[in-house]
């Protein structure tokens, strides 16, 4: 053996020995006789801690009895990671996703249908409010289970209502009334009476801008009786969308579009003292039950009320409902063990403990009395009642929703800025999304046609 071989041996061998001695070990907190169930979630901070408490309790009780150990991992972009892991053949056993990913992922075969497991494990699906169960279904199959749901309502500042001569006990009932209230609640500071261009808004009644807490830029046609998806077609170019954009533009014209844009540019994050609603600069906002958590921290003296968001007609009160869901990805190694964990999490007292900690509503038809009594949001009963509305709607169940979402955002932003004519912009967006949907369906049909000759692809809605 020459000196070169010895050096080569050392160079290659020493790191290997080092890895053996000092390298990674099995998780010391996992008891050696347990089977690990991998659970990927997006929650960190307070929300993650609440789920971790439930996981710990499962591991100490049901998990110990069955010999399982749930390993909770909080990950950023959990949807993308789960998809890539599923494509690589090594997905987690359970994943927590926002509900809008159910249709595209189910249609791509990334999610395991859960109907058989739900039957086998005796899950009482009728115990959930219909809207939550509907969100979990795609193409007639159950692909997800409810996790932490929410509805969106109108928060309004009662003090600003009083200051503007409005009755805080009577929030706006229709979209037209909302605009009227917003006009009265807006205050403009006049810097130079000779130069109106120098005026600035110091208090805004309401805005739908994506730049200012307007996270759901696409929902407005629904409040004018116009859903965006009929199960096969994207239905944007309808009288409802035209009416919704006209409603938005009417208010902005009345308040001065440039001034509104200037005001919106100042928005701070929701979880900050610069949140314009919490700082008293925005009188009304379309938001979810979690806003109460930030109000408690950043504006404990804020006098606010919550009401259903007005629709064009008070006879058809539309409600946007959404939630996080729990899924078992296609190819998960331990779907049955995962289902035992999910069954535990879906016990009413466990799920409601989680929803309370997250500031959300309960997915159950009849929440336990303690749920309302100890909930951090004093208005949670209203949010819960909204979920039972026959006019509640969720994200459009389009497999191509991500692209439609981007296009509708561009539509709203350009119309708000006056860059495009609304009618022309709606037509162009409709045409663009129609092309996207048609391309997707053409390829899906082609793929189904040739599926026999292609090796290695899971079937649509594939089983594990």
């Amino acid at each position: 053996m020459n000196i070169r071989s010895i050096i080569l041996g050392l160079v290659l061998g020493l790191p290997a020995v080092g890895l053996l001695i000092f390298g990674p070990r099995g998780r010391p907190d996992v008891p050696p006789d347990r089977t690990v169930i991998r659970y990927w979630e997006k929650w960190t901070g307070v929300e993650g801690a609440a789920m971790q408490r439930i996981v710990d309790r499962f591991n100490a009780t049901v998990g110990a009895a069955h010999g399982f150990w749930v390993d909770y991992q909080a990950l950023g972009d959990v949807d993308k990671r789960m998809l890539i892991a599923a494509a690589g053949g090594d997905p987690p056993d359970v994943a927590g996703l926002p509900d809008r990913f159910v249709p595209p992922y189910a249609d791509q075969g990334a999610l395991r249908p859960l109907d058989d497991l739900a039957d086998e494990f005796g899950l009482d699906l009728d115990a959930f409010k219909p809207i939550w169960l509907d969100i979990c279904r795609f193409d007639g199959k159950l692909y997800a289970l409810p996790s932490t749901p929410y509805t969106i309502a109108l928060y309004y500042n009662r003090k600003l209502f009083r200051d503007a001569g409005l009755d805080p006990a009577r929030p706006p009932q229709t979209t037209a009334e909302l605009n009227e209230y917003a006009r009265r609640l807006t205050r403009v500071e006049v810097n130079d009476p000779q130069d109106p261009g120098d005026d600035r808004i110091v208090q805004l009644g309401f805005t739908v801008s994506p730049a200012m807490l307007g996270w759901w830029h696409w929902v407005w046609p629904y409040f004018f009786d116009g859903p965006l998806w009929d199960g096969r077609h994207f239905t944007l170019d309808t009288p409802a969308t035209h009416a919704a954009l006209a409603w938005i533009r009417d208010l902005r014209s009345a308040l001065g579009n440039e001034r509104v844009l200037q005001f919106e540019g100042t928005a701070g994050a929701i979880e900050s003292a610069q949140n314009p609603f919490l700082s008293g600069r925005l009188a009304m906002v379309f938001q979810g039950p979690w806003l109460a958590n930030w109000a408690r921290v950043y504006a404990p003296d804020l006098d606010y009320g919550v009401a259903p968001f007005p629709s064009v007609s008070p006879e058809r009160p539309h409600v946007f409902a959404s939630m996080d869901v729990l899924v078992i990805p296609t190819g998960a190694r331990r779907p049955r063990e995962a289902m035992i964990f999910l069954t535990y999490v879906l016990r009413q007292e466990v799920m409601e403990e989680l929803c309370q900690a997250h500031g959300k509503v309960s997915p159950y038809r009849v929440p336990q009395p303690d749920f309302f009594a100890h909930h951090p949001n004093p208005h949670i009963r209203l949010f819960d009642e909204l979920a039972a509305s026959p006019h509640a709607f969720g994200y459009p169940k389009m497999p191509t929703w991500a692209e439609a979402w981007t296009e509708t955002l561009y539509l709203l932003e350009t119309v708000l800025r006056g860059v495009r004519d609304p009618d022309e912009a709606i037509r162009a967006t409709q045409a663009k999304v129609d092309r996207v949907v048609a391309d997707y369906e053409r390829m899906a049909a082609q793929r189904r046609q040739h599926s026999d000759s292609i090796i290695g692809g899971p079937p649509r809605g594939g089983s594990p």
Partner: protein
Amino acid sequence: MRSGRQSLLTGLLWTAPWWLGFLLLLAGPMALSLYISFCDYPLLQPPVFVGGANYKQLVGDPVFHKAVANTVVYAALAIPLGTVFAVLLAVLLNRRVRGQALFRACVFVPTIVPLVAAGLVWMWLLNPEYGLLNTGLRALGLDQPPLWLESPRWAMVSLILVSLWFLGSPVMIYLAGLQEIPEELYEAATLDGASATRRFWHVTLPCLSPVILFNVVIGIITAWQVFALPFVMWRTRPGPDRATYFYTMYLFDNAFNYLKMGYASAMAWVQLLIILALTALVFVVSRRTVHYRGV
């Protein structure tokens, strides 16, 4: 013959960590992405060959055109501006003054701040109501300072301003280049009566030109891959009127949001070709302007 083969095997064995990594982690995935660029591939279904459809679609895609235009504008403004500022800063930092090390550290420190943290800080600095920049502009008498991030007109300017914050690395490279310039060239120029400005134009810049070429090429590559800063500063939105929607952001959206891996792969290959073409162009143009000592 036998010893030649043995040498080859030994050489391959010693270089195995590189070529194995190259084959498995670079050449293999690149070849696969080239194939996928001719397919419809939503990641979880098998790829279906569609020929040049993805490339054809790029030609007629207005969002792609917008992303290309934004990237070209960004590169055309950020690279020259960054080069001028970096060279000037390097020249200043090369002067022997008290506190020289401190000044150099001040210029370099921003480059070690993570992009996400820097993006968040700049969001606050550019906030139209509470931001330091607009507060300063108002103090100077400007009643309606720009809506930096929310105005289609100013969004790109904001991003280019922020990109200048990260000049530390090129400045350090220029500084190293400046220190390589022989002192006798300056002495000779001074003896010939050249002013400081003429010494800069006729000694410093020609001697620094290979370093400028290097930084410009790196700048082109970086500009065509700009992603993290706009992604953070516009909170994953494409900016007002898509004003800060760049090539790599659209590529990312196609790959991971729209699950169009084939289309994204086609974009990646077009991006590679554009960068190669621009780099080649820079090298051709630089033949007459870049001076290599001893050549």
